[in-house]
């Protein structure tokens, strides 16, 4: 008994507490309302579907915590699939394709980071610019058609569509591993401390001898590389480089990250909170679909729940103070 009370206190005390309650409420509701929702198959499906926003969300959350913004992930998702598929078609090698995708992602991260952290151009503008330029670039390069995967490698198909031990989709496995690694880095390594310091109070961080631009720069590169990972998984699920992939993805990710309690003004947030935000939205989308609710109702309900969840979170936080 005392142990469970302890757990409850931990849950409501920690900043993720209200969010975890929200997630459990969403899952509980749909488990009662739909007879097909609560199955291993469906839950693992949702974890797989959530993994794209989760991977990109880790990076976006880190950039937010460092006091900057990154909204370029939607177009990046479509852009990195092109070198991936083109190189794979030419070389028949998944590894080379992934390397090419990561190279493009890395370059975009470096450009974002250089413009925002070193030239000190507002990062929303920089990444909004990259969002437009990349999408336009994808359309120009592909002539607005998708590039099919002609190599047909089994490993590439399995990457996004296969399941570990036949249960958990590989994208979900990758997202969980990345989440744990980066949560550890943000909580227990100097890099994490530096990111929080740079976002929380850049002047103090500078005076304390931190290289603030370099920290922020690193955040952008990490963010672009993580979005690249999401783009690779999506390309495998689509079996091609689709020019319209990821349209509006940046909205989903930013909504999930902010829902997860990551502050836009920097210095505040946790990756587990972000993950809960992603899961809440993903289970919501899946459950509402299971109830056969028309799109218009799904949009209305999701919007209302976002407002409710964030205000509940704010309320809890204020109570604590």
């Amino acid at each position, binding site marked *: 008994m005392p142990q469970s009370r302890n757990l409850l206190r931990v849950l409501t005390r920690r900043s993720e507490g209200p969010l975890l309650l929200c997630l459990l409420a969403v899952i509980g509701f749909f488990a009662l309302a739909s007879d097909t929702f609560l199955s291993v198959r469906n839950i693992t499906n949702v974890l797989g579907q959530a993994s794209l926003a989760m991977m990109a969300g880790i990076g976006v959350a880190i950039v937010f915590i460092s006091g900057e913004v990154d909204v370029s992930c939607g177009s990046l998702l479509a852009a990195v699939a092109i070198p991936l598929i083109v190189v794979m078609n030419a070389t028949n090698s998944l590894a080379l394709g992934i390397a090419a995708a990561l190279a493009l992602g890395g370059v975009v991260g470096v450009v974002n980071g250089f*413009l925002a952290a070193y*030239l*000190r*151009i*507002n990062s*929303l*503008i*920089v990444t*909004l*610019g*990259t*969002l*437009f*330029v990349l*999408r*336009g*670039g994808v*359309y*120009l390069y592909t002539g*607005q058609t998708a590039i099919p995967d002609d190599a047909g490698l089994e490993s590439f198909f399995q990457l996004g569509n296969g399941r570990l031990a036949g249960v958990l989709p590989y994208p979900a496995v990758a997202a969980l591993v990345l989440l744990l690694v980066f949560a550890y880095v943000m909580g227990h390594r100097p890099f994490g401390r530096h990111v929080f310091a740079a976002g929380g109070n850049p002047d103090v961080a500078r005076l304390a001898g931190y290289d603030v631009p370099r920290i922020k720069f690193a955040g952008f590169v990490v963010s672009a590389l993580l979005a690249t990972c999401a783009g690779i998984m999506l390309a495998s699920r689509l079996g091609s480089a689709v020019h319209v992939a990821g349209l509006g993805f940046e*909205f989903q990710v*930013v*909504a999930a990250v*902010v*829902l997860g309690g990551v502050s*836009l003004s920097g210095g505040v947030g946790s990756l587990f909170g972000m993950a809960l935000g992603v899961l809440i939205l993903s289970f919501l989308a899946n459950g509402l679909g299971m109830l056969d609710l*028309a*799109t*218009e*109702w*799904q*949009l*209305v*309900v*999701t*919007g*209302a729940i*976002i*407002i409710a969840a*964030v*205000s509940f979170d*704010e*309320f809890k936080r*204020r109570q604590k103070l």
Partner: protein
Amino acid sequence: MASSSQIQPQPGAGRIAAAMAGQPQAVLIVLLLLLCGAISLAAAQFYSLANIIAILRQSALVLIVAAGMTTLLIGGEVDLSVGASLAFTGCVAMDATNRSGSVPVGALAALAFAGAVGLFNGLVVTRLRVNSLIATIATMMILQGGVYLYTREAVQNQHHLAAFTGIGAGYLGAFPIPVLLAAAVFAAVYIALRHTLFGRYTYALGANPIAARLSGLRVRRLKLAGFVITGLLVGVTGLILCSLMNAGQPTAGRGFELTVIAAVILGGTSLAGGRGSLIGTLLGVLVLKVIDNGIIILRWNQDFQMVVPGVVIVAATWLDTVRVRRRAV
């Protein structure tokens, strides 16, 4: 960034920026002139009356909402629901005019609806304390869904009132009515921001919310006003767009919020609040719309309509950053 490097004269863009360091918006004015000049040289149709009117009419649609957005951003908030609200407002306007057979009733319905959306956004942000970015993304979703609950397809014009068509396509003297409406909105918001207490307080609020609160400003009410003003202006634009398309289109306004925000930040308004000007916003709108128009006039591949504004926004903001820093030295 050592300060010594900023004192040294810099080559290229830096020097041009330095020469104009005294004028705010100098970068944008030069950019606009260069664009107009270059496009005119390449295609004479650019400066034909028909095209100028087409550009001004398109700019008017964006400018009216951008005026509200500028006020909001100066006060440190943002509204992403304007595109979805625009579509919904058009449907409400057409429906109300069909039912009542009266243009004023339709116009009032549009303003009331869009104003109510602004009020809702404002209350969620000020009372429930939800960050405005996320709150208005949520409102955007609610409106996108709601409009299809309201009407399954485009609301057709069944009233055939000439006055309704006139709102979008009509002229007063030599001037298109949307352009006159935009000019009136521009003047009103300009005066409100520059010459009233409301404006001064909004700047103060955005620059330092804590100090503003401590000095007794009614922060919540100011912010609420910003959202309601933006809402009402969406109502005006929704009415114009609905008249221009001769139907209430639930699919309209996709991505409109990004165009508006891009124009405002291109105009030099800070996302962090406390800094910005309506003249800058006007120039931002014109630059973006001239690019959009120019690409068609030059018969370029329309995919460049995404690439070029992206590059221009980043470059102009960079030049502006350089200019501000040089002036600060």
